[in-house]
């Protein structure tokens, strides 16, 4: 075979595989949305799930997923931000920094189920938090921390040197420079990254099976006292999230319409993740325009 034919053949194969990937994605989204959307209505999104009979909704699960996301981000953002700022601004190249970098890398490659098991052992059993939103949020925060650190480090490193030097020339302290000069500039990409990370949290299930549990007590949406056991915002109650619910429906499948509910819930989950993606991009650009007065994000 001469070189020209080989070139054409190889190009053809590469293009074929690229098209195949797009087709797989289109097919997946098509199947998920087509089968799921028919099942989604207001009743499905707001009513509680059924254990035995058909017609259950996903209301509490949807609420749990969103509330757990908020709790997780409350824990993740401050710690991840601090870790990332350390890596970008304080760390000096050397053995210690290399070690911390290794820690972040290892932490980000731990299987999520192992993080969940660690949560079960330490928070659920040893600290006696039980299967609860709090245990789940801590486990998810651990799972999400390395990503947050990396996002923060990259956002801070992307700030032009001159901005920092201008601050140094004015005689500001390092911390003042970080909070008043670097943070605002890094904010757009920080926000984009954080929302994308939040999308990942939203779909996670393996780390939650043994931390936030697979059940939800009957919730009373008129009771907003966080200390009451039936209050939706009590952080010490067990909470089955949307992703966990999909898993449970498929592996236990006691309700007769398990497949339809799972299809509807999958569609809701995927739509939420798509929304996170779109909002992340749009909001990052919006903030960037607000604080820099330039039209385009670099």
């Amino acid at each position, binding site marked *: 075979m001469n*070189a020209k034919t*080989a070139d054409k*053949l*190889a*190009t053809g194969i590469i*293009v074929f*595989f*690229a098209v195949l*990937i*797009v087709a*797989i*994605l289109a097919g*997946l989204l098509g199947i*998920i949305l087509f089968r799921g959307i028919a099942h989604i209505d207001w009743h499905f999104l707001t009513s509680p799930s059924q254990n035995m009979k058909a017609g259950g909704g996903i209301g509490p699960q949807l609420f749990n997923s969103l509330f757990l996301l908020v709790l997780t981000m409350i824990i993740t953002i*401050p*710690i991840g931000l*601090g*870790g990332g*700022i*350390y890596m970008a601004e*304080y760390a000096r190249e050397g053995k210690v920094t290399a070690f*911390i970098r290794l820690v*972040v*890398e*290892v*932490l980000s*490659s731990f*299987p*999520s*189920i*192992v993080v969940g*098991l*660690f949560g079960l*052992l330490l928070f659920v059993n040893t600290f006696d938090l039980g299967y609860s939103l709090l245990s789940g949020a801590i486990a998810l925060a*651990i799972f999400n*921390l390395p990503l947050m*650190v990396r996002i923060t480090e990259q956002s801070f490193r992307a700030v032009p040197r001159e901005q920092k030097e201008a601050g140094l020339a004015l005689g500001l302290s*390092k*911390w*003042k420079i970080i*909070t008043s000069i670097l943070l605002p500039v890094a904010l757009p990409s920080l926000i984009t990254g954080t929302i994308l990370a939040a999308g990942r949290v939203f*779909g996670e*299930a*393996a780390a939650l*099976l*043994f931390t936030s549990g*697979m059940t939800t007590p009957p919730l009373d949406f008129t009771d907003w006292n966080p200390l009451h056991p039936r209050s939706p915002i009590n952080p010490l109650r067990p909470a089955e999230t949307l992703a*966990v619910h*999909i*898993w449970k429906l*498929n*592996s236990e499948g006691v309700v007769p319409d398990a497949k339809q509910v*799972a299809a509807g819930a*999958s569609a809701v*989950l*995927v739509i939420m*993740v*798509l929304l*996170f*993606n779109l909002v992340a991009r749009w909001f990052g650009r919006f903030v960037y325009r607000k604080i820099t007065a330039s039209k385009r994000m670099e």
Partner: protein
Amino acid sequence: MENTKPASRGFARHRREDLIGKTYTYLCVLMLIVVIVSIVYFVASKGLATFTKDGVSLAEFLFGRSWNPTGDTPSFGALPFIAGSFVVSMLAALIAGPLSICAALFMTEIVPGKGKRILQPAIELLSGIPSVVYGFIGLTVLIPFISSLTGGTSVGYGVGAGALVLSIMILPTITSIAADALTSLPRGMREASYALGATRWQTIYRVVLPTLAPSLWTGIILGIARAFGEALAVQMVIGNAPFLPTSLVQSASTLTSVITLNMSNTVTGTVQNNVLWSMALMLLFMTFVFIIAVRLLQRRNKL
């Protein structure tokens, strides 16, 4: 004297601010280290109890083929699960590896610019789909399809279905690493090859791929690592029978699927429970192996 006063007060504020910043960021980093040390310590202490306290031999755990933890003479051979994990993740990488590298080549070599604008969002969306949704699609679409392919002789569950589902899940990991590597390649290398009269494929095959081989392998190993640790999607399609996988369409198990299914059915402290922690320890151990492999590859990076 009067002139120095405001200055020294300024310095005091300066120092106080820096102290706050340092304390805060150092505490955060310390937290990361505490987390990782405690994960390893707690999982290891539980996982090793199987061998130290319950007297199960390490050889039985690693090489035993019989898994019957609740029998009269209980046996704890985890080889079927260890093999299952390795087989599905290797197969997944075998499918996803070439596909991902083609996708990365498409984005950077064949249609740079436009190809990236189409394929990049597609890849990001694929990585955003939650693993339970992949499992659900596998369960309701792939399994009946595989079953019909075998003419109904098999239900469809097995390492084949597991590997297919995982291959889609690790595709974004490998593609984005490969694409990053390809864009980092200096233009001069490609141009030198074209100037010698090489075709595009010759350039890719003889210059681009060999130069980037360490990075591409890094992507593939990280993909395998992700597949190895994935729990729910695999558990939903693999069938969960405790046997060594001998056929693509025969029900099998992985380490993660066994942990998922049995952790809440066993009592804390019993040997049946501890042996699950040993499997979790095995997952941790493999994570370290994968990271060491990646580090070794990066050292060989020719760029």
